[in-house]
């Protein structure tokens, strides 16, 4: 890489390839169709961190199209959700607009690199007790045969399968008692988020941030029943949102897959160009019109290609539709981004809980 930089007189491509982890290769999704009820934890899958640097001036250098990245952050979470569902090893898998620490198993992700040729994601998973299941950087590369992308397929599906397999492998190490405790802690952490006064004493948090159950509410505790009702209302919202995410995925797939195909071609063209320059594969003598035109045309086509991608990025309007939900006989219409709607909905639910229980709000 250093040699190429010197030969060109310009810095090398922004993403140093040696910083990328090894590709996951071809991965077969492991399924667990015989999982016991206690093993089938519910998963909360937060929308990925788009990995867009705050410094706008770096975006073009890093090949980041912010609008596309924001869409990818949702798109990729939906693919991982579908992969986890396909593994038949889990309970309900929900894509969340924000991370919810009271999820039985919370998965977070960050897009490190994405250009159609390679995808790098940082994935972490932590259960409600605070146990870290996963914190790993995954990488996958596409082949020419991955494009055009067949309907329902994804060129980086091996990466998602690897994540699903790793999660399943970790879960298999846990005993039924440990899994049961995850569920109990998740429920009590949610209850504690509604009313720390009423539920704060059920859990203990260690210095390392791990939660354990001190005592459990009585069977049929009316307060816990209200908590369950409120939580179901929250799930209702998330399920509605998930439909929007799935719809976005459906709408976005054809165009996005073409965009990735072009992105791959451009990435390969860049690599080959660097190789050609390193090998001094020039058609004309240095300084001749033919040689200068060759240099200029390489730049010109890279710009035309980049500007085509830029125009496409403008079409990725991440429009959100208002969500209408009903609770306690009242209809609520939520506006703004899904993230904002989610916060608004949670606030409404907490107000309802406070009104119903007479407990002081959090």
């Amino acid at each position, binding site marked *: 890489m250093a040699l*190429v930089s010197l030969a*060109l*007189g310009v810095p090398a491509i922004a993403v140093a390839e040696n910083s990328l982890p090894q590709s996951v290769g071809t991965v077969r999704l492991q399924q667990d169709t015989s999982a016991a009820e206690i093993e089938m934890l519910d998963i909360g899958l937060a929308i990925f961190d788009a990995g867009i640097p705050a410094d706008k*001036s770096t975006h073009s250098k890093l090949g980041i199209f912010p609008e596309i990245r924001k869409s990818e952050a949702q798109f990729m979470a939906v693919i991982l959700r579908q992969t986890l569902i396909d593994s038949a090893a889990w309970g309900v898998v929900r894509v969340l607009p924000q991370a919810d620490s009271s999820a039985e198993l919370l998965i977070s992700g960050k897009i490190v690199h994405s250009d159609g040729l390679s995808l790098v994601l940082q994935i972490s998973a932590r259960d409600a007790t605070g146990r870290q299941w996963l914190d790993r950087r995954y990488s996958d590369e596409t082949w020419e045969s991955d494009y055009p992308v067949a309907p329902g397929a994804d060129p980086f599906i091996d990466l998602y399968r690897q994540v699903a397999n790793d999660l399943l492998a970790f879960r298999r190490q846990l005993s039924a008692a440990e899994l049961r405790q995850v569920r109990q802690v998740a429920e009590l952490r949610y209850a504690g988020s509604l009313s720390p006064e009423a539920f704060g004493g059920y859990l203990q948090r260690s210095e390392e941030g791990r939660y354990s159950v001190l005592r459990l509410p009585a069977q049929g505790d009316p307060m816990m029943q209200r908590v369950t009702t409120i939580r179901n209302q929250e799930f209702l919202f998330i399920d509605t949102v998930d439909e929007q995410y799935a719809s976005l995925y459906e709408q976005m797939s054809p*165009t996005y897959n073409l965009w990735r195909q072009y992105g791959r071609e451009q990435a390969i063209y860049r690599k080959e*160009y660097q190789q050609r*320059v390193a090998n001094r594969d020039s058609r004309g003598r240095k300084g001749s019109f033919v040689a200068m035109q060759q240099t200029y045309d390489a*730049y010109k086509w890279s*710009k*035309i290609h980049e500007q085509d991608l830029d125009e496409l990025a403008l079409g990725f309007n991440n429009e959100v539709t208002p969500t209408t939900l009903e609770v306690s006989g009242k209809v609520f219409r939520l506006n703004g981004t899904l993230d904002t709607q989610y916060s608004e909905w949670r606030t409404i639910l907490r107000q309802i809980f406070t009104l119903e229980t007479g407990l002081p709000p959090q």
Partner: protein
Amino acid sequence: MLLLACVCLVLSACGSSKTVPQVSSSNPVDLAGSWEMDYGQSDNIQTKLDTLVRELRRDAERRARSSGSMNQAPGAGIVVGSSGANSGASIIGLAQMSELITRSPLLRIKQDEERISVKREETFALSCEFHSGEFHTVETPFGTETCGWNAHQLVFRILLPEGLSIQHVMTLGPEGERLNIATTVVSDQVSYPFTLNRVYNRFVPGSSGFRCTQTLTRGRVCTTETAD
């Protein structure tokens, strides 16, 4: 790095601006609009080429005189078809490159507070983001592009591999109806830069009866326009 510095030095000494571009905090000039080339007002490439050849010949003669070879024929430093620096092929190649780079007859410029995009017919757009008035640099394996305002002039510098560099300096006329683009091409095989001034006149695009947009799935799609 030394090469880049040299090229920058040469570039800053040519074109329509004689000063080294500095960061300017003044309000940028509004270049937005549609522009068409005025061939009558623009530089004639043959005249510019003749001027460059004369300068190089004078240089060669000066060098010859100072080295004591007084009996050398005028213009002996330039032999068309020979190789090496300041060869005829390199000089003509430089002029051809300048013509190639500046041949866009129509420009469409979009500008707001954060960026400008100069769409040029038949080639790529020159675009620039304004970050706190600083010159903005984008580096790719194909070349390095620096742009920004130098007082009332918009400057684009493109440093390409193989010792080739290009500078465009855009200057709006006093009435705002004329735009001059001074394009300077520098090759490390020719000791003088080659500058071509292209003059553009503002025009209001009339309805062509159709409108085209670039799409991903169907390529360039054109639809007929109906009169409102």
